[in-house]
């Protein structure tokens, strides 16, 4: 029995070795990488203070979070690797993917293997990625980390991220255009709100999830990205709960909504994942008794606006919110 085992194991190993012999890539003796002239070198300082030097404007770029994917797409760079391509396609339609990027795994755990196999000349990550993983990625390619969110100044953080990506990819002119279009869109929408007599209206932005029989409502407080855009549009934040330091998010339940009072309630859901408010809360007595529900001031925004995205998403958000508010 054991002999048999030993024999078959040996055969298996031998077969495996034979099949696995050879190389999938020539060794460095065979092919020397072509060096670029030093004049084109770009040095950027990323959000963590790391100085990153690139041989030239990066073109083969991998992105591990959706906000930086969006930045790349907005700047006209087609990323070669994107985390959770399917999810991005569902959640972010403001900046649809260009090219045909390879899926590098989940956003929380991008596959280093896959990234390495793509041999990118730049990896754009956010500061949410753990330092261990960044250290590994740095061996693969230069990595710049973008601050994913900062409750102190969300819009500033968002545009700084865009600028950082733009410098590394040599697209600073495009970045200026994107930022200008964002500002113009905000100004236009702000005016539309004022014309409709909604200047200074109180707004609560949210999304919601169902766990078993409970609906948890995620509040986008004044310190969140959506909340900041709301204020920029001249609206007032209605949430009294305090958000976390980075994202400005807080969780509450349906009871907590009673503190909002008379507001415009706007939420984002996705057909892929369901609509907790329409599917699960519509028959709830607390929900039905809320003043904004009674007045019909509840707006589900169209799918595909990524709540933690870049300027393109926020333009789409401002458009859809103002559309919803001024419709009636």
């Amino acid at each position, binding site marked *: 029995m*054991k002999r048999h*085992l*030993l024999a078959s*194991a*040996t055969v298996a*190993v031998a077969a*495996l070795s034979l099949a*696995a*012999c*050879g*190389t*999938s*890539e*020539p*060794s*460095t003796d065979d092919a020397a990488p072509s060096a670029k002239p030093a004049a084109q070198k770009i040095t950027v300082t990323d959000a963590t203070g790391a100085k990153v030097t690139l041989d030239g404007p990066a073109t083969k770029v991998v992105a591990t979070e959706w906000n930086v994917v969006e930045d790349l797409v907005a700047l006209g760079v087609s990323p070669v690797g994107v985390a959770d391509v399917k*999810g991005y396609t569902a959640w972010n339609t403001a900046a649809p993917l260009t090219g045909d990027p390879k*899926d590098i*795994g*989940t956003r*929380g*755990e991008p*596959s*280093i*293997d*896959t990234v*390495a196999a793509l*041999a990118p000349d730049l990896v754009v990550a956010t500061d949410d990625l*753990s*330092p*261990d*993983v960044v*250290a*590994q990625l740095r*061996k*693969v*390619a230069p990595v710049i980390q973008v601050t994913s969110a900062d409750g102190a100044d969300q819009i500033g953080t968002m545009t700084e991220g865009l600028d950082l990506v733009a410098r590394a990819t040599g697209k600073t002119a495009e970045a200026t255009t994107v930022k200008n279009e964002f500002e113009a869109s905000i100004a236009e929408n702000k005016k539309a709100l004022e014309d409709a007599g909604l200047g200074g209206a109180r707004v609560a932005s949210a999304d919601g999830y*169902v*766990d*078993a*029989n*409970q*609906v948890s409502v995620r509040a986008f407080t004044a310190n969140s990205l959506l909340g900041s855009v709301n204020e920029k549009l001249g609206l007032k934040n209605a949430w009294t*709960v*305090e958000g976390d330091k980075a*994202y400005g998010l807080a*969780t*509450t*339940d*349906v*009871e*907590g909504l*009673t*503190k909002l009072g008379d507001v415009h309630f706007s939420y984002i859901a996705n057909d892929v994942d*369901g609509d907790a408010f329409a*599917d699960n*809360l519509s*028959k709830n007595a*607390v929900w*039905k008794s809320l003043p904004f529900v009674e007045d019909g001031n509840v707006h589900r925004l169209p799918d595909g606006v990524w709540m933690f995205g870049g300027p393109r998403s926020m333009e789409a958000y401002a458009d859809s919110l103002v559309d919803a508010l001024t419709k009636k």
Partner: protein
Amino acid sequence: MAVISKSVVGRDRPAAATTGTVAVTAGLVLLVLVLAVVDITQGTADVGASEVRDALLGRADAGDSSVVIASRLPRMVAGILVGLALGAAGAALQSVSRNVLAAPDTLAVNAGSYLALGLVAVTGVSLPFLASSGAAFVGGLAAAAVVLGLSGLGKGTVRLVLAGSALMLGLNAVTEALLLLFPQKTEGLYRWGQGGIGQNGFDGVQQMLPVVVAGLLGLLLLGRRVDALGLGDDAARGLGVPVRGTRVTAVVFATLLSAAAVTLAGPIGFVGLCAPALVRPLARRFRGLTRSRTGMPVAGLVGAALILGADVLLRAVVPADLAVEVPTGVVTTVVGSVFLVVMALRTRDTDAAEAPDRLRIPGRTAFLVTVAVLVVALFAVVVGAVLLGDAKLLLGDVVNWTQGRSGRVVTYVLDARVPRVLAALLAGAALALSGTLVQAVTRNPLAEPGILGVTGGAGLGAVLVVTTVTAASSWVIAGAAFAGAAAASSLVFGLAARGGFRQNRLVLLGMGVFAGTTALISLVIVVSDPFDTTRALTWLSGSTYGRNMPDVLPVTVVLAGALVWSAVRRRELDLVALDDNTPRLLGLRLTRARLGFLVAAVLLAASAVAAAGLIGFVGLVAPHAARALVGRRHARVVPVAVLLGAILVTLADLLGRTVIAPAQLGAGLMTAVIGAPYFLYLLVRTRR
């Protein structure tokens, strides 16, 4: 005279017992009522005591009364229903299995239901509430059937707890894999997995109420037969009670109750275990409670009091908005784990220690062949692990890489992949050695660093550092893991040492500490980073993701040291594993030797946790299989166990990295999926 006094006593006693039972029941009802009243005044809305009073009197405004009616009352009623269901189910399960540790948790009923619901969530089919409860019921019943079938009824607590917890770990691993694979679809399922009684209106409660009532009634009708089972199977048969039928029916009703509770509130930990345990001392004073027909409902009341008490306590201690984040089940699990520890200390070791597995003593050749086969297998697995992955490589690439002249892509891929393979290999070897040492010292073939709470403690220490310190170095994480492991193991071993490391006490203490530390880990994750559970979850599932060479250093050092040491001390290990007297006769300082081996085992387990997260089963399965293969001399067991552990974890890591690439599963999840069935098989094989 004698006749008279006898009749007086005869008449008096039942009367006194009935009064006592009624008093206890009334007291419990009152307690539940008080807690219920306090509970409905707590919540995120500004609806306090006076508003609740107004709402109940119909004088409040529409908003306040809707909060009371659609949010507070359903939560309170759900708490009572779930408590009743779990308490009664636990009492029934303990009676029919004649086992004080049978409960929805220890029979893996909750885990089975949780997995069934997870599967439903992932398929995206939104089932109506009753149907999803049906799925939970089927899942729970299947799990209970497996555990009871494997452990045998009335055959001792340790087998039951072990079979139950092995299945629970295996099933939970699959569920966690689903959570990681479908993060969007299962968002919230993790938190829900800890259990919470909040409700979206009365719908859920209304639909589950008939199920709970049916389950309770069924158990009550069965009460007399269950009592008859308490007399022993033969006596029960003599009374004309169908033993088998009664057991099966009772388990079905109890599972129905647990499934209803799980559907309503998620798995709420340990209420089904604690509630009957709290009734037992009462039953010694008030004999009426020993009857199932009164005992089960009273256990239900205690369950309701436990859940409402946990809910009230949570909201009294933390602000309402944060309380929404903290699952009630975590609180009950922490309480329950303390309970398990206390019960472990009170349990007398009625079970005879498991007879040492009868093993043939294979010869030297057999040992050498085994080692050769394992070395070849390890080599094959390592080669496979290095070549396979999202980018497939060939051996020539590896040769080039080792000589430092590989191409750009190959260098990148291998630079990232090799530390992971090493981390898995070394962690597996370290856990196997740790398990071997613990089993030798405790002379307990079921002892394992995971089951003994050592890895749980290490995990808690490491998670605390990972979540609070932004860029903790590998040595700091390893240090924290060691501190946690040391604390947990001093608790478990310290308390168990008084009984001379007997089976029951050690394993029960360990399970208690294990449950408590995992609940605390969940709590730390939920509170510290409610919006990014993936990272800690990954870490908890035993992943080599993101390992660098420096991370592998602590475990390498510890493993090398421990291997050398156990090679030098192999004779002492054999002696320590033998019995209490022989080593003393031979002049071995037993306590010192034991302590030394235990410290080494704890160090090994902690450094493995720091390198690759929580990985279970390896420390149990590897030494066991090694002894079965080469006998019990440690000079032979240690190398074989270490090789087996290394193979198992490297293989698990390889599967985790490749099966669903580019997304990945933790190695710990994979070892649980591989290890749980093997462990159950071991239990089947040792069934007498």
